């Protein structure tokens, strides 16, 4: 297999999305609204971390370096995740005075998971065999993730006024970054023409259709145009939040990357 830049970029964006969002999820550990949710949410985060790991291993086989190295030692500008997924859970940190926003957690995970499902369905037909296998395995677990966030999203959107107010502002916040998640980045055309993944437009349409159905079902006004306000993570644009996240993620590993841990 020769180095295929488009394929490598696609794999990084898939892996980094799961890696970073699983990290944000793991910060919630012990802080979720109730104990049952703590257990369920952490199971989802483990699955996502597992998906990221599978994808980093594919990259390792492609000669990108060891999976632990590429996940722990790349610089922020080398990450290809969407900016929405790197953003902090709220004020404070997971260690001190975490003023985390559950509405943001629900909306971000719901939006992402719907897209991930669409993306995985397309990857099940990928021309690249290892992606096809991974997509099949991921899809099985994803079914449960989607049910979980779908339930939270609809439940909170149809309950108390305070919940609706908080959810609505989380929706606004995610909507203006969601194009970053839906983007395939600068090499989109090549990724699609080589049959690795469906086209960006096709997947965005599917996502919008899914969302319209959801919003109709709960009788909520459909938000206006999608946007990508803070930049495109697929081309290495990121915020300070990713930088601090990566410092935490690699704090121990970085002390000696050649040691056995």
């Amino acid at each position, binding site marked *: 297999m020769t180095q295929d830049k488009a394929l490598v970029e696609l794999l990084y964006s898939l892996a980094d999305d799961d890696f970073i969002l699983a990290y944000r999820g793991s910060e919630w550990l012990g802080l*979720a609204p*109730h104990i049952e949710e703590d257990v369920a949410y952490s199971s989802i985060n483990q699955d996502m971390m597992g998906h990221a*790991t599978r994808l980093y291993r594919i990259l390792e086989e492609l000669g990108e370096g060891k999976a632990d190295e590429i996940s722990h030692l790349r610089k922020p500008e080398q990450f290809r995740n969407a900016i929405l997924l790197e953003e902090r859970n709220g004020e404070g940190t997971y260690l001190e005075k975490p*003023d985390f926003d559950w509405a943001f957690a629900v909306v971000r995970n719901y939006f992402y998971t719907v897209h991930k499902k669409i993306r995985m369905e397309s990857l099940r037909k990928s021309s690249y065999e290892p992606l096809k296998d991974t997509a099949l395995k991921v899809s099985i677990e994803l079914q449960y993730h989607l049910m979980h966030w779908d339930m939270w999203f609809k439940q909170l959107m149809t309950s108390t006024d305070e919940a609706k107010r908080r959810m609505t502002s989380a929706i606004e916040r995610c909507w203006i970054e969601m194009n970053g998640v839906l983007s395939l980045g600068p090499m989109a055309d090549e990724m699609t023409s080589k049959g690795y993944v469906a086209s960006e437009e096709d997947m965005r349409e599917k996502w919008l259709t899914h969302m319209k159905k959801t919003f109709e079902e709960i009788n909520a006004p459909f938000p206006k145009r999608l946007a990508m306000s803070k930049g495109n993570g697929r081309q290495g644009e990121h915020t300070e939040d990713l930088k601090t996240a990566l410092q935490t993620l690699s704090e121990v590993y970085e002390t000696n990357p050649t040691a056995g841990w």
Partner: protein
Amino acid sequence: MTIETTFDRLTEEEKYEHFLNRIDAGEKIEPNDWMPDDYRQSLIRLISMHGISEIMGALPEKEWVPKAPSLHRKLAIMAKVQDEMGHGQLLLRVAEDLMEPLGKNREDIMQDLFSGRLKFHNVFHMKAPTWGDAGIIAWLVDGAAIISQSMMLNSSYGPYARALKRICAEEVFHAQHGESIIMALAEGTPEQRELLQDSLNRWWTALLMFFGPKAKENASTSHVDKNMRYKIREKTNEELRQEFFTKYVPRIWSLGLTIPDETIHFDEEQGLWVYQDPDWSEFKQIVTGNGPQSKERLELREVSYENNRWVREALNPTAKAI
């Protein structure tokens, strides 16, 4: 039906006698069976403390979940901490069933935790400042937990015994996960070995304290006697601590680590481990919420509980609590 009505006509003393006979015959008591108040109270105290300790116990390790030094370790510690929350959930449900006739629920458990009425294990009041601590916690704290929980696998209270069966099975994996971290550090660079030795030094006293004080001079040991009479537990604190030494001291030594107690040795004549007793007044300080990290951990729970109040209200708009 007839048996029930006959039972209802018994005097309280006869019911109590019948209950003790069942306990002595090794029968399991179930939630809807008649039980004396002090049995119920003992169980509530024990099980809610156990449950909340699992949940508070997730906090020191959680600090290391994002920082775990490889993808493999990240996945393993995520799974481990999730299990601990799962144990907490399972146990709180057992406690809630016992509290129901008293008109109490999980909200009461949480409020008791915040007010300090409900205590959690001393070990979870300690700081866990390095990755070595994540290893020591999983290896030795979970190891200690396995020993103290295994002696209750035959607990006279059916739901607790069944919950413990599941919990103990998972604890074995936790200890293996811990051992694997420990081995990597012990066989690693001089810095890694130092990290490990530091953690052991930091945790040793807390591990001794984990099993509770030895003799009757401490009030809480009277609970031990009662729990043994009711066959909720089978062994004394000291018996458990001795078991811990027998299992782990040789392993610690074989890794080339030093136990921060020069006096510890096995006395062949007595057939017992001789060791430096920890300062039990310090233990008392710790479990009453004055440990090195007690305030911070409780605050973390409390802040998140308050932050998420709107969510709980949204899920159940009519009820005040949960």
